[in-house]
């Protein structure tokens, strides 16, 4: 149970603004769980409730099976890596890392050894005597991580810790933080608004919107099968269409979009004839030269070159769809060219309006 986190029916409002409405979530010991969502979705509020900086209006929080209601932040067996690091400017690097251990009344020798080990762990050995304002952003990030990890917490909370780093450093730190977590086996609860970061680092992701958890799943599950319109949109499904359900044809079901396109989708049992549904199709599941149950003719409206791939905006009747093609196959088309856009029925994802 050590390191397990269980959140049950958590609610929090600030005046009239509801930050969290009925959030429940279970995190396994040693799991890397990411709270993913846009700003204002409640992910940081959830983290602050876990840390004890805010008091919930309703609901329970169990850490390692223990109810922590009424425990002030300094008594909770977890540590936080803050968004802007929150390093103590009046202390050296080593002084920052040692802060928590000094409070526990550890012996000097032990503190020195553990601080040195923590700095080695984040690959900053020998920088202990540096002042905080002499560090680069990436180094500050590592110190914050070492400071939070040195007390060997049961759970580590990370509030957008990589958001302030430039893209190259961020990519490196993503892998490094993930490796560190796997080596230590500590439960990590990681907050981010960056879907790529969430997919790279997490064991599971909880996508949040408007104070609710929309969907929880492994990166593959979320990527392959987003359940709601919000999750699909946030995970870059791009082509979201409103359609009316038509007749069934064997294992397939026909759909007519608002813009007048006829699509075939795999029948997952959730389509009711005559109902209006949202569906989504990932750009990379569509092709301008392949085959599939769906084949639509349209004209190229725009081309967006992205290096490793090209996004084509294709106009079909009233709708405009985005198709991604790999760099090798993307050559030779121009605006106004007639193309056939094809994709399998399995690429059409049925989306719900809100989490059920």
């Amino acid at each position, binding site marked *: 149970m050590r390191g397990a986190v269980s959140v049950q029916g958590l609610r929090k409002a600030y005046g009239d603004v509801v930050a969290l409405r009925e959030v429940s979530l279970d995190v396994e010991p040693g799991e890397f769980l990411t709270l993913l969502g846009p700003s204002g979705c409640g992910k940081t509020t959830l983290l602050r409730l876990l840390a*004890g900086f805010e008091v919930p209006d309703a609901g329970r929080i169990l850490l390692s099976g223990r109810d922590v209601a009424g425990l002030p932040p*300094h008594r909770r067996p977890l540590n936080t890596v*803050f*968004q802007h690091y*929150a*390093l103590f400017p009046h202390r050296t690097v080593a002084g920052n890392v040692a*802060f928590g251990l000094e409070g*526990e009344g550890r012996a000097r020798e032990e503190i020195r050894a553990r601080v040195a080990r923590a700095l080695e762990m984040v690959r900053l050995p020998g920088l202990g005597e540096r002042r905080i304002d002499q560090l680069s952003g990436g180094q500050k990030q590592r110190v914050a991580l070492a400071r939070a990890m040195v007390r060997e917490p049961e759970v580590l909370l990370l509030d957008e810790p990589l958001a302030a780093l430039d893209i190259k450093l961020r990519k490196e730190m993503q892998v490094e933080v993930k490796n560190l977590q796997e080596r230590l086996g500590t439960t990590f609860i990681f907050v981010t608004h960056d879907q790529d970061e969430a997919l790279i680092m997490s064991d599971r992701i909880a996508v949040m919107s408007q104070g609710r958890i929309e969907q929880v799943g492994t990166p593959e599950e979320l990527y392959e099968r987003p359940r709601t319109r919000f999750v699909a949109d946030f995970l870059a499904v791009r082509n979201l269409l409103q359609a009316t359900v038509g007749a069934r044809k064997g294992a397939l079901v026909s759909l007519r979009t608002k813009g007048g396109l006829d699509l075939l989708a795999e029948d997952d049992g959730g389509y009711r004839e005559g109902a209006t549904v949202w569906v989504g199709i990932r750009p990379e599941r569509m092709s301008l030269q392949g085959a599939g149950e769906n084949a639509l003719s349209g004209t190229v409206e725009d081309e967006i070159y992205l290096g490793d791939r090209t996004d084509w905006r294709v106009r079909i009747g009233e709708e405009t769809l985005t198709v991604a093609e790999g760099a090798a196959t993307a050559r030779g088309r121009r605006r106004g060219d007639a193309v056939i856009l094809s994709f399998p029925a399995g690429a059409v994802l049925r989306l719900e309006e809100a989490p059920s």
Partner: protein
Amino acid sequence: MSRRAALFLLLPCLLTLLLLFVFPQALMLLASLGRRSVYGGVIPGHDLANYRRALEPLYLSILARSLGLALLTTLLCLLFAYPVALWIGQKAPPRWRSALLVLIVLPFWTSFLVRMYAWIFILRTEGLLNHLLLHLGLPPLSLLYTDVAVLLGQVYGELPFMILPLYASLEKLDRALLEAAADLGASPARTLLKVTIPLSRAGIAAGCVLVFIPSLGAYLAPDLLGGARTVYIGNLIQSQFAVARDMPFGSALSFLLSLTVLALLALFRRPLRAGQEP
């Protein structure tokens, strides 16, 4: 920016300092080297007799007492002001903050003299405080014209000068740092000692200087609340100019007081400067 342009921009500041600080000090230095004329004027001269007199044990003990009063005033102001500034700067709802600060500086709208008389009404034998004590069945206190009354008046008068700089540095203090301390297991008391106080050092230093220096030359509170029973350096200087009509000796005492302050500032320059870096 070129050196010349920088000098040009500094000019107003330099002129002000020259006119309001250097010039009067020079005038005082000149007067202190002269002799008193029969009618209280200054006969120019260049001997150090006034300084020799000022360094006699009698006057040195008055200076020492004044240093003691200023030190005690500063410490008590710090003690009372810190919780107030901490509360306004960190805990009070932000929309209340400016109103609370106005309340702190509101007494300045009334002359210090009037406020000292108000304290006399409170502290005197038949005053408000003793009425209250008698009403509660407690024995009355004889507070007015004691050193305690002087200290009380000083602390009361200087308190805003301590609260304002403390507030300025505590209000800036990043709350995330306090949360980080709590997150790392520090109790509120340990957070105060290890994070809040060290990070408000600039405000503490500024407040202490702002309170200590005027307290050193205080003469109104000792005069009115102390009944001039105990002489402090401020009273001594004032009486040289107003009563004894010995401007040269008064000037020498004033100049020595200025030197004392400068020496103290130089002595504490390091901690003061260090406090300025957050």
